[in-house]
């Protein structure tokens, strides 16, 4: 440990070697023990440490932890409920939509005179394959 490094550590981490980087503490203590002038460096920084220690902040209110815990419990449940709700909504929507589409198709494609095979048409106006011959089916596409 050089005097420069010792001074740099004190300037950055303060006057308590116990708060210095762990890897350098032993060397710093050895340096301090071997160099009496090092104590003055530490003392100057320890005075600033003492001044900084006077800034006290109040502890959080007692209700805060309870509020966070309650909020957390609700949030864990919320996604599961939301997924179930969305799944239910999707199923209902699919059923309703399917029914509506079916009703529209039946109304438009089935003539009033009945659903005779010879008059069945696709939505493009072409004969339904099952009612025509195989050659005609290829033409409808």
């Amino acid at each position, binding site marked *: 440990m050089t005097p420069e490094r010792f001074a740099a550590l004190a300037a950055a981490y303060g006057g308590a070697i116990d708060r210095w*980087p762990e890897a350098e503490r032993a060397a710093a203590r050895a340096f301090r023990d071997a160099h009496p002038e090092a104590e003055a460096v530490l003392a100057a920084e320890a005075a*600033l440490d003492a*001044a900084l220690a006077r*800034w006290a902040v109040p502890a*959080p209110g007692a209700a*805060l932890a309870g509020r966070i815990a309650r909020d957390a419990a609700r*949030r864990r449940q919320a996604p599961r409920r939301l997924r179930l709700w969305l799944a239910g909504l999707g199923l209902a929507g699919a059923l309703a939509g399917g029914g509506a589409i079916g009703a529209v198709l039946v109304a438009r494609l089935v003539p009033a005179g009945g659903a005779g095979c010879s008059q069945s048409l696709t939505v493009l106006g072409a004969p339904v394959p099952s009612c025509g011959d195989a050659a005609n089916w290829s033409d409808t596409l």
Partner: protein
Amino acid sequence: MPTGWAGRRGNRRRVGFREDMTDPEGDPDAPLLARIGMGEEAAFRTLMAHKLPRVHGLALRLLRDPALADDIAQEVFLRVWRQARAWRPGAARFDTWLHRVALNLCMDRLRRRREVAVADPPEQVDPAPGADFMLARDAESRRVEHAVAGLPARQREALVMQVYQGLSNIEAAAALGISVEALESLLARARRALRQQLEDLRP
């Protein structure tokens, strides 16, 4: 990999439990986190009993606003609760992750406060946001609070992490997302400025 968002806009840093920020050997919070990951609310409350004052204190020292500090603490611990299930021992120390998330949320709030102040300047300029609230009645405490608040942001953050949060140099550097050398530089400059301002407070 579980992650938590906790960064500044434009320089948003993705913070993951498993990010290799510090040596995680013997992380004392690992057993508790495992229980929280299994949905144990009692374990979550125990963790808060240990960590909430530190997280809240960090936010209070950086933001100087008790309501905002409450908000930050709540957001931090809700992230813990949501992400604990995916946490695995052997990654970053939980305490470092916690500080980094809290710090980044604080920086977000400070940035927003600056944007609001610029967009809608008050008729009477407040010299320091939150200055009307004194964190302690003690005059010396207020002196130190104001002196620290007057430091450049990164110096203030480094000082709070090292002096008041008691993080090691490696942990503080990781929480700040900087090298240990950069941390030392910030700390030295911060202390040099404070030494002049707080000269008369010395014993």
